[in-house]
């Protein structure tokens, strides 16, 4: 099983690494001291198992769990002996280990993961998945901030940044329009100009080469206008 460890304590990471070395079928492919680093990795790589610390500053284990879209199996680690296992509401959490982790207990948890692994895929309920499809997490100053996608009315590109505008807030993110377009539902959003993506449901009116979104006049490229007109429910 390919696994990773996420823990802000170097000691805890080394203990897990040592325990993995003594297990025949566990390959520790990487270790991370924060949940944000782990998410970046998990977006690009597949693993079978995560050893995940619950208590981490700013972005803890539960935050990471809630962010994972197609989570592998997770074994939680905690230095809280009275840990209330609220986490078992998630099917992919197979066990939790209290630090310092005893070898026998570790092997028992891994054995459980092996057994449950054969029953995959598990994951969350359809309702939870549907709700997550309407959410987007953006990385601002090493914090992942959740945005409800339907609340976005406009995204504007300026230099190396994009500005995501919602009813109450504006977020500046180091990214590109192309990247964020891939994260948005294609039926609800449209790139009308090289620097603008609009939420079609927020259009107030349209003129020849511009569209009014809330109170902002947004230019529409000549090449994008046919697609825009096609997407509207014209009388």
């Amino acid at each position: 099983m390919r696994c990773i460890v996420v823990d802000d304590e170097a000691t805890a990471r080394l203990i897990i690494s040592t325990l993995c070395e003594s297990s025949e079928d566990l390959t520790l492919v990487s270790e991370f001291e924060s949940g944000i680093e782990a998410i970046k990795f998990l977006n690009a790589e597949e693993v079978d198992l995560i050893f995940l610390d619950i208590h981490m500053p700013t972005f803890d284990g539960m935050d990471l769990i809630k962010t994972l879209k197609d989570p592998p199996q997770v074994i939680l680690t905690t230095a809280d002996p009275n840990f209330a296992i609220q986490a078992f509401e998630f099917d992919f959490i197979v066990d939790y280990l209290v630090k310092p982790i005893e070898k026998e207990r570790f092997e028992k948890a891994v054995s459980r993961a092996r057994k449950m692994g054969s029953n995959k895929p598990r994951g969350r309920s359809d309702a939870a998945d549907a709700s997550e499809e309407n959410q987007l997490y953006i990385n601002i100053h090493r914090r992942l901030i959740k945005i409800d996608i339907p609340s976005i009315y406009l995204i504007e590109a300026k230099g190396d940044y994009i500005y995501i505008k919602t009813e109450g807030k504006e977020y500046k993110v180091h990214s590109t329009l192309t990247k964020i377009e891939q994260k948005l539902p294609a039926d609800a959003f449209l790139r009308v100009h090289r620097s603008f993506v609009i939420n079609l449901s927020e259009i107030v009116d349209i003129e020849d080469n511009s569209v009014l979104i809330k109170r902002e006049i947004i230019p529409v490229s000549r090449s994008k206008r046919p697609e825009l007109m096609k997407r509207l429910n014209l009388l």
Partner: protein
Amino acid sequence: MEKPNLDYLEDLCEGKEESVQRLLNVVKKELKEEVSTYAEAIASKDYDSAALWAHKIKHKIGIFGLENGYALAQKHELLLREGKKDAHEEFERILKTVQDFVIDL
């Protein structure tokens, strides 16, 4: 009073001296930093932060086999979260015991 030991680390590393030493080096370095940051948090009466560091130190107390010390650290952490440092002095005594132990390793 209970005394720190290396039973946990030796068992974990299946007696391999090199592995035990590798772990000890990391624990010693991290413990030193954590104790220092914990002390700063207590001095500035930032008890939320002190609770976070006490939580991490508690793990090290457990690694060195201090069961009563671990229980006290747990109690101290919870009190700190409530803004109380009633168990601070007792916690400091345990810290000194652990630090005196690791300095000779």
